[in-house]
């Protein structure tokens, strides 16, 4: 089985370093196993505020408020949460605000739960329909360069960007004992 242990999450330190390098000071999230280590690291980082959300669209509005106030924010979520963000992304588009999301993918590679598949399949097209550029990461060695590119395009180029961490990169969620 190609499953990896998500608690080790080698992508987390890479994302953490990229967010700090880009001076992101507010990170909002709805918890996901793939983001667990990064959330923990961010909560231990001085000068970074973390805010847990009840639903992902809150993070879109918070990011807009942060930018209006001169601060950079990012949103961490699972692919199912992208569906909860759709209308709120109007705020980013109408105001041409920077937006940065890091999305852990479900509903694809080796997915066990059919309920994850519809939104997982719709994640990338629905982001694009709302004007969010997507950068899909399948290999860990691409992540640092793509994150640096994403933070530059978002905060210096006024773009809305979502980094999609593929389920193959993350490892399929373990449900059954082998």
């Amino acid at each position, binding site marked *: 089985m190609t499953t990896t242990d998500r608690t080790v999450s080698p992508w987390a330190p890479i994302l953490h370093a990229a967010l700090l390098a880009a001076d992101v*000071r*507010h990170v909002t999230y709805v918890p996901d196993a793939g983001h667990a280590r990064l959330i923990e690291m961010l909560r231990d980082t001085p000068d970074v*505020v973390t*805010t*847990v*959300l*009840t*639903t992902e*669209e*809150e993070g*879109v*509005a*918070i*990011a*807009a*408020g*942060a*930018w*209006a*106030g*001169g*601060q950079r*924010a990012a949103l961490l979520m699972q692919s199912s949460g992208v569906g909860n963000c759709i*209308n*709120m992304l*109007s*705020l980013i588009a*109408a*105001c*041409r*605000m*920077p937006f940065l999301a890091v999305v852990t993918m479900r509903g694809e590679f080796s997915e066990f739960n059919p309920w994850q598949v519809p939104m997982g399949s719709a994640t990338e097209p629905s982001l694009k329909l709302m004007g969010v550029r997507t950068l899909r990461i399948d290999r860990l060695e691409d992540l640092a360069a793509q994150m640096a590119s994403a933070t530059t395009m978002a*905060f*210096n*180029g*006024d773009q809305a960007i979502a980094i999609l961490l593929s389920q193959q990169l993350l490892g399929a969620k373990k449900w059954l004992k082998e």
Partner: protein
Amino acid sequence: MAEGMSGALPAPAPGKLDRRKAVAALLENRGPMLVVSGLGSPTYDTFAAGDHDGNFYLWGAMGGAALMGLGLALAQPDRPVTVITGDGEQLMGLGGLATIAVRAPKNLSIVVLDNGHYGETGGQLSHSGAGIDLGRVAAATGFTAVMDVVEESDLAAAREAIGTVGGGPRFITVRIAHVETPRALPARDGSWIKSRFRGHLGFGPN
């Protein structure tokens, strides 16, 4: 007609206050206060009280006004941040009240102009009009300061509270009358509003 839909909850007493006068009183001599206004009439009321570079008028993003205020309040901790929105807009973001209460920025006030109806869409009864008290919802999530503005004489205390950096997060329900009010339309170009707002705080467009 629609008032008969209030179900098991006792219907609230109808609000009395004039929304334009109430918002004008809340924004009088506002000083360093920053304002985010929710779509529809609260945006018109905020504009009618006097255009200001520190106003961020929303024309959409329903349910997001209070959360935008949260992001702003944390980015600008030394300024009072006031969100002025309506009962319908806030009802779409009830979970956000929990998010705000957990993060608890002391400089944030949420002011809900509550007439119990969706004014922009034909005056349909809202959940607050059917008896849900938004102030009690906010208190249940952990808002430390909850105020009810019923009479004109209550506005002065509310004005003083929202101008203060500290004591928040605050939730203030202003009981306004459900009457037709002429529209007052600010700019709709979000990018321009954003750049003007950031410029007011000394930041460039990007």
